[in-house]
């Protein structure tokens, strides 16, 4: 059957002549879908970020505790740990937070060593890209994009003066910056030679902040953990799973706000749908009656209504999607974003990574476009079922 372009034209024109009503529905639909899509984009981007972060984490992190507080680990424990069956490597880490009072933010300072394999690939890539030995000589450091931005805002273009644990100034030159793929973690990071890190934190040379363990077979983790616990009862073993649960708890807590937003948007949308389903105005019914009397079949009327509602709703869906993408990924989701990442206000801000969850978009489409079209079609179908004579009377 030949496609009837006039029906499509009539549908378009029909939307235009309904002017204010069309605009109002279009605006409301766009706004609601925009809100829902933005929520989904932000939560998916953060979930993705967290998942990638967890992927990069070491299987086991060992911390030493004293009176319930974390204290430094003696390096002499490295060898005995390596002797445990199934342990592939033990990497001592020297790291900590440095509070930059002027900007009111914390930087994560991580010590790196030219002779030491980094505990995660992204960090290793950065280490490989720079001559760490030269860093030691020059007193250089490599900073995350977020750190660089904050330092520049505070007029530190080429160097930064750390205040060490014993109150002295330590000038470190900025020799480079990096945009790691895991911005949530890497954005606030400063990489500098271990020697400098020891100095800034005032740590003894025979200690590390914590130890990172790699295992040969992940199935053996629980056995290795129990052996470590036996050997060093003062050490806490944090597994990748523990960190995942901890991140998830923060995320779930924050997503409560979003759930409320989601529920309000969905409720408003379904109110519109309910209103639509409850019937057509007398004017709309009369128009259907006129068209039937002039020889339009029910099929013609429903097709026209379908085009009309599809153009309106799909147009709103596409616009809302484009706007929410721009809002989240280009403008970095002002307002909404702070609800989710509020827990890291002491850290430099990070950009939401571009991550689109296609099944969620399909779900959003299915929950909006067909539902709206249905809400237009059902009352139109009811009116078109009536005798034209009855509608026009």
């Amino acid at each position, binding site marked *: 059957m030949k496609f009837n372009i*006039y029906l499509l034209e009539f549908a378009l*024109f029909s939307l235009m002549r*309904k002017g204010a009503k069309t605009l109002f529905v279009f605006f409301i639909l766009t706004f609601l879908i925009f809100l829902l899509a933005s929520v989904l984009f932000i939560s998916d981007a953060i979930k993705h970020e967290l998942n990638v972060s967890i992927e990069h984490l070491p299987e086991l992190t060992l911390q030493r505790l004293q009176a319930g507080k974390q204290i430094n680990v003696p390096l002499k424990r490295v060898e005995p740990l390596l002797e445990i069956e199934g342990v592939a490597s033990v990497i001592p880490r020297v790291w900590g937070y440095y509070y930059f009072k002027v900007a009111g933010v914390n930087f994560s300072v991580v010590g790196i060593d030219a002779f030491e394999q980094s505990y995660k690939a992204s960090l290793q890539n950065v280490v490989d890209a720079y001559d760490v030995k030269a860093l030691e000589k020059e007193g250089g450091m490599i900073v995350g994009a977020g750190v660089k931005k904050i330092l520049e805002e505070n007029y530190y273009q080429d160097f930064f003066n750390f205040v060490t644990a014993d109150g002295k100034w330590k000038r470190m030159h900025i020799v480079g910056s990096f945009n790691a793929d895991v911005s949530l973690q890497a954005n606030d990071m400063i990489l500098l030679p271990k020697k400098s890190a020891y100095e800034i934190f005032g740590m003894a040379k025979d200690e590390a902040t914590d130890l990172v363990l790699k295992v040969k077979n992940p199935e053996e983790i629980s056995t290795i953990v129990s052996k470590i616990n036996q050997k060093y009862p003062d050490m806490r073993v944090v597994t990748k799973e523990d960190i995942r649960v901890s991140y998830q708890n923060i995320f779930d807590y924050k997503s409560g706000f979003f759930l409320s937003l989601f529920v309000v948007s969905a409720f408003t949308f379904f109110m519109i749908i309910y209103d639509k389903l409850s019937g057509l105005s007398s004017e709309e019914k*009369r128009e259907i*009656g006129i068209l039937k*009397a*002039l*020889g339009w079949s029910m099929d*013609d009327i429903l097709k026209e209504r379908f085009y009309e509602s599809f153009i309106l709703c799909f147009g709103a869906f596409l616009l809302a999607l484009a706007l929410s993408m721009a809002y989240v990924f280009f403008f970095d989701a002002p307002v909404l974003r702070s609800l989710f990442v509020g827990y890291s206000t002491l850290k430099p801000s990070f950009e939401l990574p571009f991550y689109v969850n296609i099944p969620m978009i399909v779900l959003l489409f299915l929950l909006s476009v067909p539902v709206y079209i249905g809400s237009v079609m059902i009352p139109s179908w009811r009116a078109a079922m009536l005798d*034209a004579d009855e509608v026009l009377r």
Partner: protein
Amino acid sequence: MIVLKNVYKCYETEAQRIDALRDISLHVKAGECVLLKGASGSGKSTILSLIAGLSKPTTGDVVVDGKRISKLMEPFSAHFRRENIGFIFQRYHLIPTLSVRDNIALPLIPENLTAQVMEKRIQEVMQLCAISHKASALCRHLSGGEQQRVAIARALVNEPKIIIADEPTANLDAVLSEQFIETMHDLKKRGVTLLIATHDSQFFNLPFVDQQIELKNGVMIS
């Protein structure tokens, strides 16, 4: 050409049952002009609706051009209407937010004709009804007479064999009523079958009227 056989039509609501037509039988030949007379509520409009296939009789048969339209299913009755019937409603039933041209084009939209054929037909009927100068005006801005000319043009645009007019002069002054009668006369000369429901006495003595049927409370009295 048009045959009604023992037609009954009743409208039922929860509160009451109204017998709009009772045992109506009539026969109209092709090209005839038939007047349906009677007071308001006598059943004139109901007969016209049944012939146009806008509603179905409760019992009895309506046959137009050999087709039992009282038994036609919805898509076929719509197609039948499009092919055969031009309806001029008492209150014109134009879509006020559409232009004159677009209102006239409405019966042609489901036909899916080529743009040229469609435009040719629209221009012809607009000229015939002397409404071309208002082609782009919105119908809600037209006078009563102009609206009626649009309604006539819309009824003619699909080149129907039958024109049905329900109280066509009820909202017109004497001069416009005269013009309408002349238009009907012209159509009759072209061989179009005319069915006009009216209680306007101007129609009663017209020479081109072939039959006059009088109704009272849903019953044919003459």
